[in-house]
């Protein structure tokens, strides 16, 4: 097969499928529709709560899938047995930028059951390997929402102040963070913790050392140790230099409950991969256990630079009404056998082409 024929996203889907199957993830195929109730009850777990709905023939209100994870969790009978699946599906949701519905091509994986350190490690590793498939120049940012919450709890118990801090930390907005600290009469120690959180990105070892030096709670300390182990394991992957800690992405704790990560690829101005641990969704749906997974937004890959195509087709076979049909067939066939892209036309088309075979003068 000629790889040049494939678009970036198509190439990625093939390579990712092989990668996930290698690690024992099973393909999961699902219907495009889901009962609307599923989304109505779990709105906070959706990127956007607006979904495309329609009434099915039996009167049920249905929705075009805005999300894949909810359906996979719903279809998981028991979380006792660990379940590993991957998918490649289109979802339909409102784009934040255009405020219009968009079809989004998404691939990803989910691991549901009794989740341990190894499962989290595997998910982060596969996220990094997935990005590596798309481009060598990638960054995978990792954080932990439980550690983030624990540090915030150490700083203040005031919910309003905590959420104001979380928003500013997500924006890396140090100047306004300093203002909030001042306005709330924070002590030097409290302010220092805030500023350590604001600088908590980059090399994992340095970030964890800085957090360790200011954190006091048992929960925070345990989480720091857990992250240390995680990064030590990742250190052996060969991709470690591209995996960093970044606590600016830890403030979305409604969905994620632990490790959270986002992946960026050079040349695409937004995150192409997003994932993490989402035990709270399982609890919400009355299922025991935990879950970890991620999604890759393949439609973004069309923004990656491709070698600009100089021609639309290689050859135009020009013929007239008097040209014998077998001459046209022969000329087209000749091009196809050489692997060229060819069009038979009576007039030169408004396309970019390399050569022209003119058969207009041939007569039977």
């Amino acid at each position, binding site marked *: 097969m000629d790889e040049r024929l494939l678009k970036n996203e198509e190439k990625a889907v093939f390579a990712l499928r092989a990668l996930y199957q290698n690690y024992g993830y099973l393909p999961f195929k699902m219907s495009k529709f889901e009962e609307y109730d599923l989304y109505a009850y779990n709105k906070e777990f959706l990127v956007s709560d607006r979904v495309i709905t329609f009434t099915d023939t039996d009167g049920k209100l249905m929705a075009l899938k805005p999300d894949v994870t909810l359906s996979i969790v719903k279809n998981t009978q028991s979380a006792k047995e660990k379940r590993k699946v991957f998918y490649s599906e289109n979802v339909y949701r409102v784009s*934040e*930028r255009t405020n219009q519905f968009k079809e989004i091509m998404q691939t990803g994986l989910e691991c549901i059951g009794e989740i341990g350190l190894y499962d989290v490690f595997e998910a982060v590793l596969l996220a990094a390997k997935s990005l590596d498939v798309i481009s060598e*120049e990638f*960054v995978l*940012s990792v954080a932990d929402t439980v550690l983030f919450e624990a540090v915030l709890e150490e700083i203040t118990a005031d919910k309003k102040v905590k959420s104001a801090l979380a928003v500013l930390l997500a*924006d*890396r*907005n*140090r*100047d*306004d963070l300093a203002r909030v600290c001042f306005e709330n009469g924070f002590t030097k120690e409290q302010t220092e913790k805030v500023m350590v959180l604001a600088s908590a*990105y*980059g090399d994992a070892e340095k970030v964890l050392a800085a957090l360790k030096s200011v954190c006091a709670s048992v929960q925070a300390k345990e989480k720091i140790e857990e992250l240390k182990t995680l990064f030590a394991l990742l250190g052996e992957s060969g991709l470690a230099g591209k995996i*960093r800690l970044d606590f*600016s992405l830890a403030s979305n704790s409604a969905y994620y409950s632990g490790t959270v990560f986002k992946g*960026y*690829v*050079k040349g*695409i*101005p*937004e*995150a192409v991969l997003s994932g993490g641990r989402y035990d709270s969704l399982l609890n919400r749906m009355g299922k025991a256990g935990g879950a970890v997974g991620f999604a890759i937004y393949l439609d973004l890959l069309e923004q990656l630079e491709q070698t600009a195509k100089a021609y639309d087709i290689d050859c135009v076979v020009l013929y007239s009404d008097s040209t014998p049909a077998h001459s046209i067939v022969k000329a087209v066939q000749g091009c196809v056998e050489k692997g060229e892209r060819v069009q038979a036309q009576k007039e030169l088309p408004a396309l970019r082409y390399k050569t022209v075979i003119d058969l207009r003068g041939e007569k039977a």
Partner: protein
Amino acid sequence: MINIALPKGRLGEKVYDLFEKAGYDCPSIKENSRKLIFENAEKGVRFFWVKPSDVAIYVARGAADLGVAGKDILLEYRPDVYELLDLQMGKCSMAVAAKKDFYDDTERTLKVATKFVRIAKEYYAKKGREIDVIELHGSIELAPILNLSDVIVDSVETGATLRENDLVVVEKFLPISARMIANKASFCFNTEKVEEIVKKIGEILKNGESL
């Protein structure tokens, strides 16, 4: 190369002076020309002028790695960007203004004319006041004069325009200043370069050096 979107106008020129002082100069920018893009390959920076309200779009979409935008624009449009530095320039306040004889009759829905719909809605939602928002794109001061609205929500610097139109500030509720913003993905790949720029400019601001 770090692409920097500067807001056209006096604020943008002041911001460029800051960059110049921090060592990221691009002398051709001061030549009187119709050029829109200016580059200093040696320093690894490229500046371009855009409409102030468009800066955040350029940065969020990655056409610029860094940019300078007002806090009002950031609060209104919520672009997904990092807000790395308060440049302490272009200072003003988001304020409610009305005719001198304005009395807030809480029995009626308050008619609010503004360019900043989200900011106005959030401000009045916090107060629990029901409002009818009228979105305008310019000459907001006209609205209360012609009884199109009871009040306006707008950014106010000196209040001169308000005074000239016999309007008064009812309440200033949000301090505004220019912020240096960064594209999140680009920040991941240019962390050191961007941090160096932010650090140098931050130091100049901290030392209060005159520009």
